């Protein structure tokens, strides 16, 4: 019996989703009960899995071909257990919160159905034991994200945002698929079981790094695994393609530059969705996937470097944009981008434990921030512009307190969770290359700056609109998840997550060769004091600039315009696509339709036009031709040979 328990992690939300889809979407209370119930069940099982002795269920065979075996199975290792707790725990809290937030929505049954699909897919990604299975669930979260961003589909912007998210993700998934196929091509397996990746790494690392002197772990005594049959000898190029392909999946799902454009637009969805999917869990799936295949990433030094660069660039790039945004949810969205950039950078710098630690704490405080922002929006009757708020701190004190905790945690103020994870992450970056560290520290300062700006403008000063004068505190069902997440955001650095992930990372091979610069271990000064200095700088300058401001004293067009990436894509890519489409349309209507199809028709019509001339109506003409034909026939039969 015990080995079947874990399957309920997938079955429960799936059953809820199907029930809602088929029957319950008109019975909102029943749908909510099913959805929240399944999320709670998931969380309980996740706790049992993480702390109990529940074994991973026996995988069952799904595809079995010569050279390709795909099972549907589960991995229970520290990485997936940690992620599972985050996904189900934060997920459950957000389910409960949604009950309050969506109370007045007429189609909340559909909403909870979407959440259940999401829980199903996300748990699937977390536990998937091979890349094909992961890819399936990967598409599943893409679907649920699409459904939930476009939940208010009657709003055109929401429908467009949903499409944009889906298209961006599909684009990236194409790369992900190439990565998976290359992986299969090179390794002869698609499994990502840790005990299978290790020998793969060891067998492939040897030719990659040349001499064995600095690589004690890559001894040629690697055990033979079934994974290695009929394997093509990998070379650096193919390995790099594989790593970059896998990273492509992360670029889409985690909204890295240059596909970051979908995430801010995804804020068109209901706020709990922004919190659950587009801040805490789904967008972190990319980072999680990178950590899952981490031993493979190490096979390509260039791939790792690219990952670190993209992450690093996204971190500072999104933080800069966030400085000049006015929509409370968009600021948080850009902040999510920036933090995801951090995590990806950490993976690229060889610190998957730092990435996972930050992922976990970020899930706490970013979910908290979004939910608190949702509470603010709820209180002000759907007002999202921070310049139309103001003076809220004593009117909705609970929301303010929790938001402030989230903000301090995100900014990296000790002793909140974000401080510890960010420092851990920055020291991992420093160990690899101080340039990444420098960008990371500046980003930390910017993060503190824009979060302080947000809090000061939204919660302090005089109320700037009538709505902001009489806000109402949210109901308990919404504030209790806030409080729980706030507690987690405070203690997140102390509950042993760091050692937990550190112990996990010890089982992984390490990237020993530094990328570019000479590595040196971070000391206390580097790890804590310098980032803290920048954080204080950010806090202070934001305070100095924004305290008691009625309008934005800064006016940086390029940041407010998000570096004009949407416009650029609109013109260059969408425009280019339009041109290609027009050209293809021309070929279609003139060459294919015109020349080949209609041309053939016209030829037969023309021939008919000629031959109808023989149809004179003259009986004797016919008789003449007929007899002529007869004579010719007779001539040929009798005399022609």
């Amino acid at each position, binding site marked *: 019996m015990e080995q079947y328990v874990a399957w309920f992690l997938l079955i429960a939300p799936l059953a809820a989703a199907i029930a809602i889809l088929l029957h319950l979407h008109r019975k909102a209370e029943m749908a909510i009960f099913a959805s929240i119930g399944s999320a709670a069940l998931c969380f309980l099982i996740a706790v049992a899995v993480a702390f109990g002795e529940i074994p991973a269920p026996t995988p069952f065979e799904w595809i079995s071909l010569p050279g390709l075996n795909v099972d549907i199975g589960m991995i229970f290792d520290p990485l997936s257990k940690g992620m599972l707790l985050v996904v189900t725990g934060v997920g459950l809290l957000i389910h409960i919160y949604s009950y309050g937030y969506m109370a007045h929505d007429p189609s909340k049954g559909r909403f909870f159905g979407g959440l259940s699909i999401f829980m199903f897919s996300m748990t699937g990604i977390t536990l998937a034991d091979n890349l094909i299975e992961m890819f399936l669930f990967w598409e599943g979260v893409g679907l649920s994200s699409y459904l939930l961003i476009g939940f208010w589909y009657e709003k055109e912007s929401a429908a467009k945002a949903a499409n944009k998210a889906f298209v961006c993700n599909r684009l990236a998934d194409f790369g992900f698929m190439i990565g998976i196929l290359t992986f299969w091509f090179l390794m002869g397996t698609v499994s990502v079981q840790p005990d299978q990746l290790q020998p793969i790494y060891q067998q492939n690392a040897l030719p990659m790094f040349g001499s064995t002197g600095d690589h004690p772990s890559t001894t040629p005594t690697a055990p033979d695994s079934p994974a290695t049959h009929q394997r093509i000898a990998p070379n650096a190029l193919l390995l790099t393609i594989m790593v970059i392909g896998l990273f492509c999946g992360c670029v889409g799902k985690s909204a890295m530059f240059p596909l970051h454009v979908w995430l801010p637009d995804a804020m068109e969805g209901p706020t709990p969705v922004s919190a659950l999917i587009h801040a805490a869990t789904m967008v972190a799936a990319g980072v999680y996937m990178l950590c899952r295949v981490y031993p493979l990433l190490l096979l390509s030094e260039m791939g790792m470097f690219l990952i670190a660069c993209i992450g690093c660039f996204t971190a500072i790039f999104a933080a800069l944009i966030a400085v000049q945004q006015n929509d409370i949810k968009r600021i948080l969205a850009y902040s999510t981008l920036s933090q995801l950039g951090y995590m990806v950078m950490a993976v690229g710098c060889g610190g998957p434990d730092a990435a996972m630690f930050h992922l976990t704490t970020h899930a706490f405080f970013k979910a908290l921030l979004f939910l608190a922002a949702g509470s603010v929006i709820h209180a002000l009757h759907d007002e999202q512009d921070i310049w139309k708020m103001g003076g809220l701190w004593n009117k909705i004190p609970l929301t303010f307190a929790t938001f402030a905790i989230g903000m301090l945690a995100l900014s990296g103020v000790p002793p909140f969770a974000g401080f510890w994870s960010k420092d851990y992450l920055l020291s991992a970056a420093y160990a690899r290359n101080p340039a990444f560290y420098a960008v990371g520290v500046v980003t930390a300062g910017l993060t503190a700056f824009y979060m302080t700006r947000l809090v000061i403008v939204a919660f302090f000063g005089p109320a700037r609109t009538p709505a902001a004068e009489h806000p109402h505190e949210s109901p308990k069902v919404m504030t209790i998840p806030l409080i729980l997440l706030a507690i987690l955001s405070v203690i997140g650095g102390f509950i042993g997550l760091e050692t937990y992930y550190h112990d996990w990372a010890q089982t992984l091979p390490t990237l020993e060769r530094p990328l570019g610069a000479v590595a040196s271990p971070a000391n206390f000064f580097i790890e804590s004091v310098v980032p803290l200095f920048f954080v204080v700088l950010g806090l202070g300058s934001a305070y100095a600039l924004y305290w008691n401001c009625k309008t934005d004293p800064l006016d940086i067009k390029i940041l407010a315009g998000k570096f004009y990436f949407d416009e650029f894509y609109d013109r260059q890519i969408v425009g280019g696509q339009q041109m290609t489409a027009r050209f293809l349309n021309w070929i279609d209507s003139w060459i294919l339709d015109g020349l080949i199809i209609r041309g053939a028709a016209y030829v037969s019509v023309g021939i008919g036009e000629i031959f*109808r001339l023989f*149809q*004179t*109506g*003259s*009986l*004797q003409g016919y*008789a*003449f031709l007929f*007899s002529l034909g007869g004579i010719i026939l007779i001539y040929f039969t009798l005399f022609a040979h």
Partner: protein
Amino acid sequence: MEITLNHYLAVAAILFAIGLMGVIMRRNLIIIYMSLEIMLQAANLTFVAFSRFNGHLDGQVFVFFVITVAAAEVAVGLALIVALYRLKRTTQIQDLTSLKF
């Protein structure tokens, strides 16, 4: 001079040619119809000639059948011509060209 099969066939061919020329060149439907009958008789003549010179009677039997069918055909054909005349007030072939595009 002895009359051989070829003489009969030559007469039949001439008859057939006369009939064909009549069908192709005459303008009156009734004349054309008569010419058709001449062509038919040319065929009959060959049947009889072959029958006579080959020494068995199959051809003769055929001719009886042909004459019977031709009689029936004449009845139908003349009736059609009469009906056509009632409709169009003419039996001149150059006026009957409505069956064209």
